[in-house]
Structure formats: C-alpha cells, structure tokens
C-alpha cells in the first residue's frame, strides 16, 4: 500500500449534501429508462406460462402483420451466443432463446420489437405458444441437495462434545421466505451497435462485468463495448448479474441494425432479475450455566433455480461473531424449477442472522439471562475465533453497549408481556450483527488541470449509496481543494475499471484506488519539476497537493503552482492512475474485519387485532471511517426500512402447482411504506479500520442485518410467542 497515511479530515467525514442532489430533485438525472436514441425501437419480453417443459410451437406470423411490429425473436431465430464468461457473481444465468427449454414459470421465451412500446406490448399479448409442459419440481424435499461453491462447510472443535458439555441447550428450525429486491427503477437497457461496437445504457451495478459478458457472448472485442450507467434506480443486488434481458436487447439491436430499448415490467422484476432465495435453517446452541457458549451448529438449505445457483453465505458469518470453541456450519442448495436467485441487500447475513440471533434470544430465556448480557459474554472482539488472528478492527461490543444505553435497555423487564401501555403489549428486543469484509479490485484516475480544478474518473456505479459524493470529498482532501473544484464522474466502462457496487465493497475499494491515484499523480507532477525547483529530488510521498500547488508535505510553504509545472512542459492536464493495493493479509498479521452492529427495537402490539407497530429503533454501527455522516446515516436508515420489510411484509409467494409468482406486483407484494417506519436513531461507533489506508468499511448492507431478529425478539418479549418464520404476520400475533 501507499507508505504514507493520507491526510483526511477537512472534508472526509463531513455531512455535505449529495453532490448529485440537484440533478435528482429536478428530474434531470439521466437513468437508462430516460435514454432515447434516433431510430430507436422498443422491445417487450414474452415469458413462459408453464413452469417446466419445452416449447413445441411459436406462431409469430400473425404478429408481424400488426401495426409497428418489426420483429419477433424466439429460440428459432435469435442469434446463437457464445458461452457466458465467468465474471464476478457468476456467469449469465442462461443465454436466452437458445433452445425451447423451460426451467421456470415466467422465463423469457420471446422478444417482440415494435416502433412503440404500446405496439410491442400489444403484440406480445397476442403471441401464441404451445408447450410440452412437464410437472415442475417445486418441493425442496424432492430435490437433490448440493454444496454451494461460495459457502463451504466449516467446522472447528467438536460440536458433539460441546453439546454434551452444555448445561442448557436449544435447537430449532427457522425459515426465511423469498424476498424480491425490487429496486424502484424498473431494470432495462438501451442497446445500440455501430459495426462491432456496442454501447449499452443499462441498470447494472457493475459496468465492467457486463462489458466482459457482452463482448464474450457476442464475440466482439471488449475494447469496443461501452456500458453506461451514470444513474440507476437502486439495485440492492438485482443489478449484479448478467441477466438475459441485456443479451436479448443487444442481440435484437444487432439483428435489426437499430437501437433497441427494453424495459422490464414490475411483474417481470419479480422473475427475471433475481431475488433473495428461501432458506430453512436448523440451529443448535449449547451453553454453560454462566452463559458461555459451548457449541454452535448452523445448517441451512437455500433454494436455487435449475441453471443458476444461489450465492448462499447463510452460514458463513456464523463462526466469526461469537468466541465459541466448537462450531459447525453446513450449507446446501436444492435446484428447483424456480426463477433465478441472486444477492439481495445483506445476502446471507440477513437470513443467517435471523436464525442465529433469534436462537441466541431463545438461549438467553432458557438460561434466565439478559439477552444483551449473553451477547456481551460471547462476542469475539479481539481475535477472529475461526483463525485466532487479531481483527483489523471490531466494535461489536461497543455497538451493543452504546445501543443499550441510548435505548434504555436497563429498564427492560425481561418477563414476556410484562410491559404494557394501555391495551398495547410492548416488546423490547435486540440483536447483534456482523457483515463480512469484501474488498474487490477497483481502479481510478485522478486528473488535475491548469485552472486548479480536478477530476476523478472510474467505471464504478453510484446506486444511491453516495459514491459520487464520498469520492469527491476524499479527492478534495487528498488534493487540498474544495469539493466544488472536484468533478467526479462514474458509471462508464470506458473509464478505469472498477468493481461493482455490491457486497459493501465499493467504498473501500474505490477510495483506496483514489488514494493510490493521487500518490501516482504527485509522482508524475514531480517529474515536471526541474533541477532548479524547490521540490526537486523529493519522492511522491514527500509532497502533497494543496490549493492548486504541489507542496512539501513537511513544509507546505515550499510550493510550486501546478499550472506552472504543467505549462513548463506544454501540458494542460496531468493524471495519475491508481488501484486498490490490498495488503498481504498474512504479512499484515490481521484478519480483515467487516462492519458490525447492534439493533434495539421496541414494538407495540394490539393483541385484539394482532397489529404490530415498530415504534422505536436504535441502530448502532461500527462502519470504520465514515466518509460522510449524512449519507452514511441514510444508508443505515434505508437498510433499517429494508429490515422492517423483511421482518413484517416481504414474502414472494410461489404457486405450489405451477411455480408461478402468485403476488408479483407492488399491489400484492408488500414493502415498508412511510407509515410503517418510526424515527430511527442511527449512531456510528468504532475506529478507522487498520486494513487499508482509507480506514473504511462497507456500510450499505450492515444496517439491515439484525433488524428482523431484533423485531422478532421484541415480539417474543411482548407476547411470549417465539417467532421463527418470516415474515411476522397478523395471524401469528392474534391472541
């Protein structure tokens, strides 16, 4: 890594307004759905009405006579595509329209292209398809369990010995349903070819992975494929994969020689861009009388589609949060005739934490111990219990203590149904939370201009997390400029390659790339300083940029204006390229820690009608160095809303006979609305993380982890009923 610690602190951390805010409130921020190109035609995806089988006949001749219809693509005439390359988060699920095979209800089976979207929609409705339908495989018990590549089984110590040694034991089964990411922006793209060059405006969270996929599958040079995503209407994981719709639009555009716009409908968003898959989990915990854990066993089964595996990660955090000598995790998946799974905000942790943190509450009640006390006794903060090496940082205990204090946890009467307000039952629950560290590769370019301004460029996307803003703040500090003098542009694969926004890895990855780029930029600027310059002979880390000048780090009064350095060589700008330089973990002697949290929740339940309101949430997070307090708080707020949705509403239902999504609209699939959400108290604790120079941790997902379990535990406290299946609905609460 860069030898010198960067000087951060003038702008980094400050809660400045989002730099893209004015665009977003005036409706001028361009999303893929807003793109119109000359000669553009509109495509609508037709989906299968059976859950398994093959297409025996598609009659498209009548459609081609309808007004405006230009083409109908099916497996009989869609171009053959090359195999999908392996990119981050997996290959494309399946190349679309290559054969007539149906693996799930609602799968892409045809594409209608017309001059207007109305004409395409109308024609798509009239298409006639005959299937040789088969009975879809939908019962997990009838499927074949198989391991998940990203979630290997783990084991340490001897769990059976730990079980035998325990004074108190609990064991139970927990379930989480399918949730659909449902970013508010409908996903889709506009694809346009110019010879072998392809430009696509899309809703991907990762421009580079999509570029690689399109180039490989269409057999064109990667250098000629450009993916543009300056803005996208959220993603929450749905934009991580190389979904078939992108290939359909690109294929149709190439065949027709015209730009093609393809936007999915909301019902299609439930089928074609992934979801958080269902899990069933068995947890066994053992502890001695004093609450010391003697064993943890966590088994999970997660559902996959026939051709595309779930990510998993349900059990992968389990061995790291609590210092327990005997831990075993087992994770399996079953392929069914279900739609493609993917990552959804806090993938794996959201589901696994529900089981583990509910089980911990159950154990606390079995022990007759305060649930907070049980956490504090067992949380592993100094050493990673799996490797025995020190964490790069771990503030989970501080999260618990600070949260308990703010919430007033000490005033809690632990007896179920003991706290009331009029006819309402009050419940107080808590949960601890962790989210894995993930540091993918990113690159960035930092450029300074003769007029004293600067630019940062990277192919990364800002999905609403605030990447534009925090990178602007970071660059302002590194260059000694005001944020208004820094122009940050992202979302274009023609810029330096970057990781996707996903896995809570981008802020750390990209900020360290920017730090590295500035160091290189300083080195480049030094080469412009001649032998008579006061900076001559200094190294890149002996200088800093300040207010448009290159200065001695130890004596900033020794300075040369950057404009002079450039002019001396006839230059108008100078750039430095940088990349993440991950430390060698072994050499660093530490384990890279993710973010931590603790959630404290109050619910009020009307026992007569089973109505549950979340009344208070205190959410404490160790997010390492916080780049922007205001935007960081928004990340935790938003994730809390997601957690409330997971706990109380979100449940994508599959018809057991056909495999069809039974509630695939925003009218039927409930998400948390404003009236469901209380004022959330958000607090950050902890120190800058030691693992990278930026000191950051990802905070896009940690805020969701633990919310559902804290709510479920609060419901138990209010009612004495143990919630093990999500979502928690009225019928579970009627007295």
């Amino acid at each position, binding site marked *: 890594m860069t030898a010198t610690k960067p000087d951060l602190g003038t702008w980094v951390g400050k809660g400045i307004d989002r730099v893209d805010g004015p665009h977003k409130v005036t409706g001028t921020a361009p999303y893929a759905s807003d793109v119109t190109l000359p000669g553009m035609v509109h495509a609508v995806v037709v989906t299968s009405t059976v859950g398994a089988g093959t297409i025996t006949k598609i009659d498209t001749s009548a459609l081609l006579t309808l007004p405006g219809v230009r083409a109908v693509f099916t497996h009989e005439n869609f171009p053959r595509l090359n195999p999908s390359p392996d990119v981050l988060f997996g290959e494309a699920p399946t190349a679309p329209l290559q054969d007539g095979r149906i693996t799930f209800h609602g799968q892409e089976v045809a594409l209608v292209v017309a001059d207007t979207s109305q004409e395409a929609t109308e024609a798509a409705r009239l298409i006639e398809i005959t299937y040789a339908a088969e009975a879809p495989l939908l019962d997990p018990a009838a499927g074949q369990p198989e391991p998940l590549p990203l979630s290997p089984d783990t084991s340490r110590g001897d769990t059976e010995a730990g079980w035998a040694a325990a004074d108190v034991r609990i064991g139970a089964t927990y379930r989480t349903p399918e949730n659909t990411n449902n970013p508010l922006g409908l996903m889709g793209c506009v694809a346009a070819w110019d010879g072998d060059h392809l430009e696509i405006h899309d809703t991907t969270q990762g421009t580079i992975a999509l570029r690689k996929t399109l180039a490989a599958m269409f057999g064109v040079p990667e250098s000629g494929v450009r993916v543009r995503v300056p803005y996208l209407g959220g993603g929450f994981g749905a934009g991580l994969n190389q979904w078939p719709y992108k290939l359909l639009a690109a294929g149709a555009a190439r065949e027709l020689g015209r730009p093609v716009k393809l936007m999915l409908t909301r019902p299609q968003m439930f089928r074609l861009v992934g979801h958080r898959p269902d899990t069933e989990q068995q947890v066994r915990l053992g502890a001695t009388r004093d609450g010391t854990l003697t064993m943890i066993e966590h088994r999970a089964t997660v559902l996959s589609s026939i051709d595309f595996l779930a990510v998993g990660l349900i059990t992968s955090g389990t061995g790291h949060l609590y210092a327990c000598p005997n831990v075993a995790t087992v994770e399996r998946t079953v392929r069914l005739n279900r739609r493609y799974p993917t990552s959804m905000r806090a993938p794996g942790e959201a589901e696994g934490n529900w089981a583990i943190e509910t089980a911990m509450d159950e154990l606390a009640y079995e022990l007759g111990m305060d649930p907070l006390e049980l956490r504090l006794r067992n949380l592993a903060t100094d050493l990673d219990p799996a490797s025995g090496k020190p964490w790069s940082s771990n503030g989970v205990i501080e999260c618990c203590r600070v949260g308990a204090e703010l919430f007033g946890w000490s005033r809690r009467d632990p007896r179920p149904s003991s706290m009331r307000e009029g006819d309402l039952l009050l419940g107080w629950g808590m949960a601890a939370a962790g989210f894995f560290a993930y540091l993918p590769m990113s690159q960035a370019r930092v450029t300074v201009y003769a007029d004293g301004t600067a630019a940062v460029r990277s192919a990364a996307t800002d999905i609403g997390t605030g990447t534009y803003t925090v990178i602007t703040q970071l660059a302002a500090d590194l260059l000694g400029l005001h944020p208004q003098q820094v122009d940050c542009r992202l979302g274009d694969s023609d810029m330096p390659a970057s990781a996707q926004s996903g896995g809570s890895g981008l802020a750390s990855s990209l900020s360290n790339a920017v730090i590295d780029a500035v160091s290189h930029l300083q080195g480049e600027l030094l080469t412009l300083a001649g032998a008579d310059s006061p900076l001559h002979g200094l190294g890149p880390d002996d200088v800093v940029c300040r207010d448009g000048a290159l200065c001695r780090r130890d004596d900033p009064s020794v300075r040369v204006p950057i404009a002079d350095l450039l002019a001396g060589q006839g230059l108008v700008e100078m750039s430095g390229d940088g990349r993440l330089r991950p430390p060698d973990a072994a050499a660093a002697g530490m384990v890279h820690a993710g973010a931590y949290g603790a959630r404290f929740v109050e619910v009020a339940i009307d026992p007569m009608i089973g109505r549950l309101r979340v009344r208070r949430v205190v959410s404490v997070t160790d997010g390492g160095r916080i780049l922007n307090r205001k935007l960081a708080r928004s990340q935790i707020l938003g994730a809390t809303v997601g957690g409330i949705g997971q706990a109380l509403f979100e449940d994508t239902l599959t018809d057991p006979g056909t495999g069809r999504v039974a509630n695939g609209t925003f009218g039927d699939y409930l998400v948390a*609305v404003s009236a469901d959400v209380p*004022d959330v108290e958000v607090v950050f604790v902890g120190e800058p993380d030691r693992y990278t120079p930026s000191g950051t941790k990802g905070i896009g997902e940690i805020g969701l982890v633990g919310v559902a379990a804290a709510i479920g535990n609060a419901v138990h406290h209010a009612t004495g009923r143990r919630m093990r299946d999500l979502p928690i609905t009225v019928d579970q609460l009627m007295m």
Partner: protein
Amino acid sequence: MKTTRSTAPAPTAQDEYTVDVFTVVNGAPVQWRVDTRTTLLEALRDSSGLTGTKRGCDQGACGACTVHVDGARVVSCLMLAAQVDGRQVTTVEGLIDEEGRLHPLQEAFVRHDAFQCGFCTPGQLMSAVCLLREGRAGSDAEIREYMSGNLCRCGAYDNIVAAVREAAGGGA
C-alpha cells in the same frame, strides 16, 4: 378533484389508434398526437421528453409517476393522455421558478438527504407539494400517512418526513 374543462376542443380521433390532445404542461401549451392507449406518463416522457416523471410499476402502486393535474396529485400511469385534454399538468420539471431556483421542498430534500437512488424523488416531491397545499403536514404521523402512496425502496422515509416538516414550517 377539479374537473373544469377549458374551451379546448375535445380530443380528435385521427384513426382507430391515434388521438390529438391539447393540454398545458408546466404552463406551456402542448399538443400531442398519440396512440389512444398512451398513458399520461408515456406522453409526458416520450412525446414531451419530460423524463423527470418516473415509471416504477405502471400499475398505480408506487407513486413514482405522480404529477399534478389541475393542481391535484394523480398517478400518471393510470391516466390516459387523452384524459388531460384541456387541463393543466405540472411535473417535477415545473417546480423550479422562472429564474431556475429550486422549490423550497427541493432544497429541503437535498439538505435532508431525502433520497438515495433518486428514482422515487420526483414522485415524492409532487406528492409533498400537494400535501402541503392540502394542509396535511400537521404532524409527522400525518405526513407519513399522506406520503405512504409513494414507495421509496431505498428507505429514505425518515429524511423525507424531515424535509416535508421543514418545508411546512415546522423546522428541522
């Protein structure tokens, strides 16, 4: 809702699938020759290039497409373009004043970080403007209730409430 019609002629059917619509959008007269099936949302976005109004569901369930018709909020995905013939339509592009200054609610949204991806934001703003006009910002609970037709999947609700509260004069 006010349904007073102007003196503009009724929509003229050109052929089975085409209709002429005369309307006023953000204060300027507009004429659309559109497919009869075209929604107000599509006409605004595709015929007038006013892409600030967003489509989140096309089913009247998310509020992203909220605009004002004769001063009342409507979800423009559930209204046909032909229905606004002779009426006044306001979109998010119409919130800034003649000098290009942001509406106080737009400023409050930025200050309170009342959005993340920004996709729901035009609809939230259009709802909030009406909510203030309707006198429905008396308490946080009332704001939450009357803003609950606008989904925010990024979960910016607390900040939206704070922005509306401030714009209503209740302070931050």
